[in-house]
């Protein structure tokens, strides 16, 4: 096993996301980075994972072309269950089956709340985004939510302008007080700078891991609040050469995610 010396921050993020997945788990997967991340995991260390999508798809194999979004026909035609949203968001997610829910996000805050609705005031936004889709359901119901996004400082405000997808709300037990089930909520935020997790008591996000190319100072600058750093903060292993080869040549041979920016999320005003 040889570590790669030629990989991009996006590739590091995808591989770090895939490492959170254990073989055999049930995943419910949102659009963009989560798609390529979970398919990469299935191709490598976790071949027996089951991947569910909001429109009514349960997938147990890797489609022959990379899906560009969760409604892509290529995931429907390779699935083991193809029906509707009450199957996957209902009888799978609401019923509590998924081990992890993977989401993209435009903005994420101190308590893991996600905004994909608007920047600025909701009634007259400065920038209107797409909205929830199934994201609010993932965040409301899943045992462990992992959010993946490109790390830019403006994506990490102390408080998001609009909570599309509830994380730990105001911290501590505010999530449970709002009526959401105990034992659900954000597990990690994985970005192009590192891996961030949540304290069990305050539910505040902290720096758990940064990448070999980076530093704690650089990571801390990526947040609009003074984020705490774990006492035993870790440095991630870089991707191996084999991981990078599989990601580029087998999962995304046309570079739809890795080169052509077909998945880039909106972040700036």
């Amino acid at each position, binding site marked *: 096993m040889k570590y790669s010396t030629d990989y991009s921050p996006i590739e590091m993020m995808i591989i770090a996301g895939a490492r959170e997945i254990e073989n055999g788990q049930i995943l419910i997967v949102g*659009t*963009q980075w989560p798609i390529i991340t979970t398919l990469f995991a299935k191709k490598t260390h976790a071949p027996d994972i089951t991947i569910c*999508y*909001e*429109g*009514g*798809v349960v997938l147990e194999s890797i489609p022959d072309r990379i899906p*560009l*979004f969760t*409604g*892509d*026909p290529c995931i*429907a*035609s390779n699935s083991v269950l*193809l*029906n*509707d*949203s*009450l199957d996957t*968001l*209902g009888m799978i*997610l*609401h019923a509590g089956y998924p081990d992890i829910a993977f989401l993209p996000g435009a903005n994420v805050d101190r308590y893991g709340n996600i905004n994909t*609705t*608007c920047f600025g005031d*909701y009634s*007259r*936004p*400065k*920038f*209107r*985004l*797409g*909205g*929830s*889709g*199934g*994201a*609010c*359901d993932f*965040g*409301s*119901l899943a045992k462990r939510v992992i959010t993946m996004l490109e790390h830019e400082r403006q994506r990490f405000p102390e408080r998001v302008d*609009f*909570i*599309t*997808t*509830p994380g730990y*709300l105001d911290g501590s037990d*505010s*999530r449970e007080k*709002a*009526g*959401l*089930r105990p034992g659900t909520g954000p597990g990690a935020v994985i970005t192009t700078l590192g891996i961030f997790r949540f304290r069990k008591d305050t539910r505040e996000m902290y720096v758990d891991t940064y990448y070999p190319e980076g530093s704690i100072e650089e990571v801390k600058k990526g947040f609009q609040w003074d984020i705490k750093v774990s006492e035993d903060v870790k440095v991630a292993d870089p991707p191996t050469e084999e991981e990078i080869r599989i990601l580029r040549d087998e999962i995304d041979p046309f570079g739809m995610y890795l080169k052509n920016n*077909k*998945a*880039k*999320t*909106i972040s700036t005003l």
Partner: protein
Amino acid sequence: MKSKIMTMDKAIKEFVRDGDVVYLGGFIQHEPYAAIHEIIRQRKKGLTVSSCAGMIALDQLIGAGCLDRVITTYTWNPLPKPAHALRRCMEKGIPHEIQMEEYSILSLTLSYFAGALDLPFVATKTLMGSDLAKNPSFLGENKLKIIESPFNGEKVCLVPPLKHDIGIMQVQRADNFGNAQAWGVMGDSKYGINSCSRVIICAEEIVDTEVIKRDPGRTIIPGFKVSAVVEEPWGSHPSYVTGCYDMDWRYFSFYDKATETLDGFENYLKEWVYGVKDRSEYIKKIGKKNLDALKPKPWSGNPVDYGYCAQYQEDYVS
């Protein structure tokens, strides 16, 4: 039963009225773009449109000024790029202010489900804590209610039944009477289309009722609930219909660039909506070569057997 086949022009004229609450079916696939363009051509006004997870269908109706109110969870160009007309409307009130009621996919699908069954409400554990629950628009306090469950006291979110005056969606096939069959990713469609007083089914293909009866498990709405059937091949372009045609990503990219400015959006409508008489002219404009490139490779299964014995067992009858 009488045939309900008619042209798109006639179906929209007869069954979509100004001020109606309209359900737009399709979840990514099956979005009825041909019908949407006809609604714009007929300059319908004051509609409330409910569409669970839309792409640029709502964007076009908003930009064309047909809507006053929207119920949705998501509207975006799937590239992913902004839905420019939606942005202009929400950020600047162009072409006029609209009200937008937002849910999540599960909560809105449950609302359609409640509407389709005529249930008083559905209780769920999603949506609570989110700002979607705290910012009702025109539904006001009837958007949802958070109460303590009468069974165990835990907090639950009640969503109301959503019903529609008219529902429209594209399907793979239907017979003359409106027995409509659709497959692939279905999202909210079955519940949405069954929550409507009137229904327009736009079908890629009109088939004999015998075809429907050979695979009745694929029917999503019975003909007796349907008002009109329109034969409209390629009616979901630039979206897709499973087994018929794939997503036209290049067209979404073209639409993104073409509609970025207000002038550009108006020129788009002039050229692609007002500038064509009907769907067949639009399809001609796309061109055979481009259409051929969207035809999928076959992925057909074994036919399903619905067989049964012609007679009961002899000694059971006697």
